[in-house]
């Protein structure tokens, strides 16, 4: 039976990572940027778990991935609170309007 | 794929069946058996998933009628209105599938399916009897909580994409309610899991075999209280009255499904009633002894296990085990149905809470209560050990119990299949 192999998973991780980076770079909606961050973290997680499956890394990859998931949830909570504050102050979520401290 | 506890998995059974009809090499045999087993599992679960709501909707109307001093449905299909739900379903499928012009049509179309898939996926890891489970995951209890929490996404997206204020308010309430109620639900479910020391439903079910005093609900006073806490939270998490704020018909027309009609509307209800069964079955498994009846009847039924080996010339298949499991499945489904009946009873008895009361109930009462129960359930064995020099007040500790089980020897075909599963 054919094996999927490490490289296939790494490719998926790479695609997720690149999509996340492009999402963070191009979206102007604050929440859209957060979604980009989630995609980046997921791309990294796929890599961690794939390495834990196919290399002697063993359990370390899964443990790290779990930490990433938990930290991502925490990050989302704080970032969302910041986004809500931003909305309260600017009445929009467009991050381009957050240039008030621009000199 | 299947639990190692099952005497013979469905895949092995089908492999034996195929092997006795045609002779193929081991690898093809395994693939065929795997696909067949997948379809049979999916078909059985779909039957359960679609069949139980049909019964529950009829039960709900009947119970509601009786509580309100009416008769409920009486005409369709005999004097008890057995076929009322089927008739309703046929009517609903015939209706036009309306999509409002204001709606975001892609998400409006997809979100009923999202909710239904999430609700159906929870059945995947729900064991119906000893070894009868589609996917026997080591972390089954965790997985089922995760899958049940996904249903809310479909509902939120449905409400938001409808382009209606009623639906939006319903979705907002649902989101706030779900995110809050997941916390006490997880903590309450953790208490029996803590006693069992396992997330595997097979192990949890096994530990509660024997008499009614072996059920986890009677393990210590805190688990007893945790059951009621869990049941309250579970009622809220499947958005049943008195917590049905998302579809409060007196204030929000119909809440998140105001704009839905026809088939899409009906599968929201399919998902809701199936989730009611799922949370009740989880309650039965975690607290109420799972597939054990608690009256020592299944001690006798268990003697059937391992009898009638070699039926249909399939190695490792035992008719007795099958019948014993059938009995276990009946017990578990009965328990879950009783709990669903209680949910229906509560719905037609208690008035709906306000949204602030719902949030207060959760965050100010249920979360601290469940945390306290969890803490005390942890400290209870310690307390007993320091006062009575033992960790349980009477009987054997769970770790000392030996579960007797007839081991049907796995024979050539079964082990071959396992080998090519690689």
């Amino acid at each position, binding site marked *: 039976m054919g*094996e*999927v192999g490490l490289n*296939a998973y790494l*490719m*998926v991780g790479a695609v*997720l990572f*690149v*999509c996340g*980076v*492009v999402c963070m770079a*191009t979206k102007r909606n*604050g*929440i*859209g940027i957060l*979604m980009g961050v*989630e995609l980046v973290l*997921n791309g990294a*997680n796929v890599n961690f*778990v794939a390495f*834990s*499956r*196919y290399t*002697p890394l*063993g*359990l370390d990859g*899964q*443990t790290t*991935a779990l*930490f990433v*998931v938990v930290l*991502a*949830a*925490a990050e*989302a*909570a*704080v970032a*969302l*609170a910041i986004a*809500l504050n931003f909305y309260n102050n600017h*009445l929009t979520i467009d991050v381009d309007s957050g240039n008030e401290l621009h000199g | 794929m299947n639990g*190692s506890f099952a005497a013979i998995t469905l895949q092995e059974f089908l492999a034996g069946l195929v092997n006795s009809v045609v002779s193929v090499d081991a690898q093809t045999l395994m693939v065929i058996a795997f696909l067949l087993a997948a379809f049979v599992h999916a078909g059985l679960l779909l039957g359960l998933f679609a069949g139980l709501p049909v019964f529950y909707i009829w039960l709900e109307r009947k119970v509601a009628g009786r509580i309100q001093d009416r008769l409920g449905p009486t005409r369709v299909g005999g004097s008890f209105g057995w076929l009322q739900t089927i008739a309703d379903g046929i009517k609903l499928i015939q209706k036009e599938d309306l999509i409002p012009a204001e709606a*975001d049509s*892609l*998400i409006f179309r997809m979100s009923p399916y999202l909710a239904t898939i999430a609700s159906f996926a929870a059945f995947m890891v729900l064991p119906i009897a000893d070894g009868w489970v589609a996917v026997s995951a*080591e972390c089954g209890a*965790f997985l089922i909580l*995760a899958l049940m929490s996904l249903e*809310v*996404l479909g509902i939120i997206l449905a409400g938001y*994409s409808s*382009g209606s204020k009623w639906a*939006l308010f319903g979705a*907002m309430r649902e989101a706030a309610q779900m*995110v809050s109620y*997941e916390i006490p639900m997880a903590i309450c479910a953790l208490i029996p899991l803590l006693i069992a020391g396992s997330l595997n439903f097979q192990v949890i079910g096994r530990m509660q075999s024997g008499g009614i005093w072996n059920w986890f609900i009677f393990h210590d006073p805190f688990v007893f209280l945790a059951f009621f806490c869990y049941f309250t939270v579970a009622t809220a998490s499947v958005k049943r009255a008195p917590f049905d704020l998302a579809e409060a018909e007196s204030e929000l027309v119909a809440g998140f499904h105001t704009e839905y009609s026809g088939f899409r509307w009906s599968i929201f209800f399919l998902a809701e009633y199936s989730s009611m069964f799922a949370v009740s079955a989880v309650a039965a498994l975690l607290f109420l002894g799972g597939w054990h009846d608690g009256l020592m009847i299944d001690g006798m039924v268990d003697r059937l296990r391992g009898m009638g080996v070699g039926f249909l010339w399939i190695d490792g298949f035992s008719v007795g085990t099958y019948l014993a499991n059938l009995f276990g499945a009946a017990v578990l489904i009965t328990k879950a149905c009783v709990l669903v009946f209680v949910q229906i009873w509560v719905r037609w008895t208690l008035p709906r809470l306000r949204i602030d009361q719902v949030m207060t109930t959760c965050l100010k009462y249920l979360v601290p209560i469940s945390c306290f129960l969890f803490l005390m359930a942890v400290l209870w064995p310690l307390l007993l050990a320091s006062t009575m020099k033992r960790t349980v007040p009477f009987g054997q500790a769970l770790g000392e119990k030996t579960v007797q089980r007839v081991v049907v*020897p*796995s024979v050539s075909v*079964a*082990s071959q299949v*396992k080998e090519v599963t690689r």
Partner: protein
Amino acid sequence: MIEQLLFWVFAVLACGGAIAVVATQNVVRMAFWLVVSLGSVAALFFLLQADFLGAAQLLIYVGGTVVLLVFGVMLTASGPYTQIRTSPAEVIVGAAVGMLLLFVLVSSIGKVDWDEIADRLPATPAAPVNVDAAQWQKAGDQPAGSSASQVALGVQEQQGRTVRQLGLSFLGLRPDRNLVEGGAHGLAPGYLLPFEIISIHLLVVLIGAAYLARAKRRVVSEESPELS
């Protein structure tokens, strides 16, 4: 074969969902595609024999974080289906940079010979998921019969059943490394300290997020602009 098929289905769903997140401008649709993508990643975790992690991904990411994001979308939308468009020039630049980055990543992944690197690493005595090949060899050698079920049980413990090992490693024990006979590697470190740190971190985040998002009285700006 089945594993391959499932991998391709979920890989295509994960990548397609991620690309759709980038491509759509409507933020609610982005959330929907994010659900598709993250759910498929959870399925990939199950394929990678990380059951607990897949369940955690479903519970925390799909059931928690994305619900939170959708909630945020609802609270911050000024009108129905607000769309804050990206200008075409930015899209083109972004796509170009993305393609370049993808090209760099894919070509560098293709260049590395993982097997050789794995050989150069110090051989761990029993990595939890790597060992099952050897176990299977043993299972094949043994005569089929009463012991087959025990061996199969041992193998099934290897297939994605990492709950106990993960839990013990969070308590600072490494059953996959330490309990092997003749473990020449000494005590492998567990994850007790990171686990405690992350617990405190979560508590801090809980309080911090509640503080940041608390309801404030909006200052009336016409009357007292200096206070706003």
